[in-house]
């Protein structure tokens, strides 16, 4: 059975079916991310004054990822344009660039996640807070038994609010801080459970990263085994590249808003 309107535009819609399909899918994606952005606004506006983090994320890494994703959006478009003019060699080159950009994006995101994973806030019995990146735990470290020590590269502060706004503080001095397990009241890393900011950060960027991963798999398929279609039906193949490209541009669009919302405001 032949699937209709994979190449020709359907008379009543004016576009081929896959294109209408991807736009309907993207509409549902707008609702999905719209709900999350809406939740972010609710949490952000509802936060107590001074209790919403600023400067927790590395703007340099966020900027690098923004540039990488923008570059990948450009190469995706050029890959489609190369198909349109029948230059398959250039298509392969531009699509390979897109894949490399996607991998670079995921690599940087993984580094950022790891950085948060090894970052600890420790509430001490004397009411102060030790905060920093984990250097080492002693072999006998056991929080439940109150044995051993933990060493962080960070600082100790008297007021927890000092840990929230890192942007307005100049010359934060970090040093190695060793804390005894017996002195620890509560110890928690900067995972999604730490506070609402990190919860929404991991949710939104995690979902976005899953989209990057899914898009990479599709682009990888079209660049690899799926490119056999170019020999038999180049027009349909070009349409597939256009549809996957539309998804990729949407992923870029989401990041265009995620970056300023999470890293800059």
């Amino acid at each position, binding site marked *: 059975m032949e699937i209709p309107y994979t190449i020709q535009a359907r008379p009543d819609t004016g576009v081929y079916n896959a294109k209408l399909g991807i736009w309907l899918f993207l509409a549902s994606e707008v609702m999905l991310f719209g709900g999350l952005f809406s939740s972010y606004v609710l949490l952000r506006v509802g936060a107590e004054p001074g209790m919403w983090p600023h400067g927790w994320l590395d703007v340099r890494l966020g900027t690098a990822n923004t540039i990488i994703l923008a570059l990948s959006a450009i190469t995706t478009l050029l890959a489609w344009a190369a198909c349109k003019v029948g*230059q398959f060699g250039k298509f392969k080159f531009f699509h390979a660039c897109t894949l490399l950009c996607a991998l670079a994006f995921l690599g940087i995101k993984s580094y950022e996640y790891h950085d948060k994973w090894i970052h600890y806030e420790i509430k001490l019995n004397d009411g102060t807070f030790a905060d920093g990146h984990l250097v080492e735990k002693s072999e006998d470290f056991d929080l439940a038994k109150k044995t051993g020590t933990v060493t962080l590269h960070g600082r100790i502060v008297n007021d927890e609010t000092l840990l929230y706004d890192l942007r307005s503080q100049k010359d934060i001095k970090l040093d190695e801080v060793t804390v005894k397990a017996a002195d620890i009241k509560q110890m928690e890393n900067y995972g999604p459970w730490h506070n609402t900011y990190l919860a929404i950060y991991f949710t939104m960027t995690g979902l976005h990263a899953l989209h990057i991963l899914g898009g990479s798999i599709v682009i990888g398929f079209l660049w690899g085994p799926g490119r056999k279609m170019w020999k038999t039906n180049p*027009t349909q193949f070009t349409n597939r590249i256009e549809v996957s490209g539309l998804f990729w541009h949407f992923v870029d669009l989401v990041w*265009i808003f995620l*970056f300023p919302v999470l890293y800059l405001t």
Partner: protein
Amino acid sequence: MSDAHETKSAAVPAHDDHPVDLNNYIRRCVYIFISILCAVALMIWISYLPAHYSWAMKSALILLVAACNAFVVAGFLMHLISEKKMIYTVLGFTVIFVLGLFWLTWYAMNDFPTGTTMH
């Protein structure tokens, strides 16, 4: 085996709604990429403005620049400035539903259960 063969005539789709000149396209993409870089630089600069600019003002400006950036990506990279009416219809409904979603959130901010006390 050579799957990198050039098939100039066969690759042109039957409904050529976005005609392409590759060199022209590359030049246009360079301009778009530069404009995206400028928008990112502007957003970062705004975020580091001194403290006497309020957070709300800085956020509004940053989001305005982000919206312009999104317009460039959607308009030129996704060809939304020259799409078919059906696509605009789908997007029109999407905008209505998203605005409704944001309105619900805004509405819920002040929708406390009866008897709630504020501290």
